[in-house]
């Protein structure tokens, strides 16, 4: 049922801005049709708001007041040296690099030589290409679908299409870097496709970073569609580090075949308003996932992690651990739904979400949901929200450690337990370094 609601100024502006840029967006006729269908669906849906259960704590209709102009083309100069500065501690991750500036592929910043079984292409080019028409892969926005994903289809300019060939074992991680540059505030919409074929292994890191001096404002919409083939392994991470004002809407939709392994780590810091959506479907038996993350929120930052794990088949295992540090008036939201379908016997699912509240004004909303329709399963979830333990602080201080440092030590240890989940060591170190920077500390030598 569609109740006619008055459109907000922002919703109006989004539709108008689509009209204005539609011609400049890449894509064959079929792609254009998909975009038109998606914006139509969005018009019906509007921006998600708190009366939609999945968006209960993150009301975009209230929070998105202005709409920034879409970045449909970009020529902001960026050098490799600047890119490395933007990557900060992640510059030490030794990997292949595929780079986008303000949502547009920048081949001169790439580093994808000798990528072995890894095939990578820019989605912008594929969309426009007549031979490799992506429109078939682009799902139509379903009735009552997700408005943010619909907007992604309507506005996407570019992204990485990654394919890891059957049986290939790609040792170096692939970093898909989205860098923001220039003083122009804009909205950026990117779409990635990551396919790991049967028996293959790879590590993919999506990094959202900012060049010093770039506009602090951005409205980002990123969607990554992941397929992990039979017996394949994908280590996936998304790192978003910003300056406190970004609107960061991200979705990751994952489908796993049998006996697959999928690990995803989400790191968020300095995001004004963030929604990290993760939708994972087990389609083959005997697969395992580990979905974890760490987020740091301060001032009035708001970080929402919304996870749906769908055990559609038997004998799969899911693990989730999310840890948030919330300072100032910051707010952390965690919604984790585990669905166990009637056939999905021997499902093993465990979920834990923890928040460390540094102030009285810090807020944490947690909504774990188990929807279990099978009887022979082991499923559990837990949530904790705690302040720093004053006894432990005293213990540290009685050993001469000043309060600020004692607090940092405790926070690091809290968040460290999540960061430990990252398998790639240089990335793990980089994330620990980000956390320390956030705490106002230089890395411990």
């Amino acid at each position, binding site marked *: 049922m569609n109740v006619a609601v008055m459109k907000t100024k922002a919703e109006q502006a989004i539709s108008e801005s689509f009209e204005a840029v539609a011609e400049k967006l890449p894509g064959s006729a079929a792609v254009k049709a998909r975009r038109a269908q998606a914006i139509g669906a969005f018009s019906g849906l509007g921006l998600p708001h708190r009366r939609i259960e999945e968006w209960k704590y993150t009301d975009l209709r209230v929070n998105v007041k202005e709409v920034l102009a879409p970045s449909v083309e970009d020529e902001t100069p960026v050098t490799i040296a600047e890119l490395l500065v933007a990557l900060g501690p992640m510059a030490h991750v030794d990997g292949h690099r595929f780079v986008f500036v303000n949502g547009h592929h920048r081949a001169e910043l790439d580093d994808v030589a000798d990528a072995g079984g890894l095939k990578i292409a820019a989605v912008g080019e594929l969309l426009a290409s007549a031979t490799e028409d992506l429109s078939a892969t682009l799902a139509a926005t379903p009735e009552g679908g997700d408005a943010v994903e619909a907007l992604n289809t309507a506005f996407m300019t570019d992204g990485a299409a990654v394919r890891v060939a059957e049986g290939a074992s790609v040792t170096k991680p692939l970093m898909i870097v989205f860098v923001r540059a220039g003083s122009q505030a804009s909205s950026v919409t990117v779409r990635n496709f990551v396919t790991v074929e049967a028996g293959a292994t790879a590590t993919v890191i999506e990094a959202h970073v900012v060049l010093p001096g770039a506009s602090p404002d951005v409205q980002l919409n990123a969607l990554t569609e992941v397929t992990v083939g039979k017996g394949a392994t994908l280590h996936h991470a998304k790192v978003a580090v910003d300056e406190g004002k970004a609107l960061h809407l991200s979705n990751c939709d994952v489908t796993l075949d049998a006996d697959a392994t999928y690990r995803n780590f989400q790191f968020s810091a300095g995001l004004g308003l963030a929604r990290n959506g993760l939708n994972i479907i087990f389609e083959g038996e005997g697969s395992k996932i580990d979905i974890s993350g760490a987020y740091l929120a301060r001032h009035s930052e708001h970080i929402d992690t919304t996870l749906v794990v769908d055990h559609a088949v038997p004998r799969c295992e899911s693990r989730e651990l999310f840890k948030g540090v919330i300072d100032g008036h910051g707010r952390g939201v965690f919604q984790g739904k585990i669905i166990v379908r009637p056939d999905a016997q021997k499902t093993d699912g465990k979920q834990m979400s923890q928040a460390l509240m540094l102030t009285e004004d810090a807020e944490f909303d947690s909504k774990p949901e188990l929807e279990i329709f099978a009887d022979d399963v082991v499923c559990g979830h837990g949530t904790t929200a705690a302040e720093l333990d*004053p*006894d*432990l602080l*005293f*213990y*540290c*201080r*009685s*050993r*001469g*450690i*000043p*309060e600020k*440092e*004692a607090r940092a*030590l*405790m926070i*690091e*240890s*809290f968040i*460290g*337990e999540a960061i430990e989940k990252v398998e790639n060591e240089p990335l793990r170190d980089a994330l620990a370094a980000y956390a320390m920077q956030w705490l106002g500390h230089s890395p*411990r*030598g």
Partner: protein
Amino acid sequence: MLEIKNLHVKLADEDREILKGLSLTVPKGEVHAIMGPNGSGKSTLAYVLAGRDGYEVTDGDILWNGESLIDMEPDERAAKGVFLAFQYPMEIPGVAGLTFLRTALNSVRKKRGEAELTTPAFLKLAKEKGEKLNIDIEMLKRPVNVGFSGGEKKRSEILQMALLEPTLCVLDETDSGLDIDALRIVSEGVNALRDKDRAFVVITHYQRLLNYIVPDKVHVLADGRIQKTGGKDLALELEKSGYAEYTHKAA
């Protein structure tokens, strides 16, 4: 010299006085033992010396080398040489023992105007001091005290003390839960630190410890005050007669 003068301490969020005019003087170079019944205020005294929240000093003063400790933060006190070996050492999940020790040692050194130790220099020191207390360096790679046995926790407290080299050492029931060998090892660790510039306050329930760490004085703390002071033989007497005499006096 430690001078505790007419110390009155109540619980911060309860109207209950725990220390009721306690006076005690411990000169540098001496070891004073404090014995007393359960709940008499021994740990409270130790915590108040170290500066733990939750207690309110309503009267009296604590002077260490002539300076009042009362308004100092716990880390400032540590920098002035105060150290408390906890009756119940805490576990810090996620913080490796070595990181904790190095952070503590370098914080204290910095406050004392000494250069921070480099990682190799620190590791060498930790290894050396650890060996004396039968603590393997591998154990210190694990999170602080997590999964340690009761005795291991107590030994790790003494290792912290040996590294930080405090000048006022307060040991709260460090002997409880130690097996016979550990008791000897810990006592040797403590005795190694005894020197003319250091003062020790050793809280214990058992005379046995005082055979190893021979005290200059023994005090009986009951009902929030020092009820009697004597030499090391007082501990032997208490072993025989118990505290009835002192608790009656208090009641």
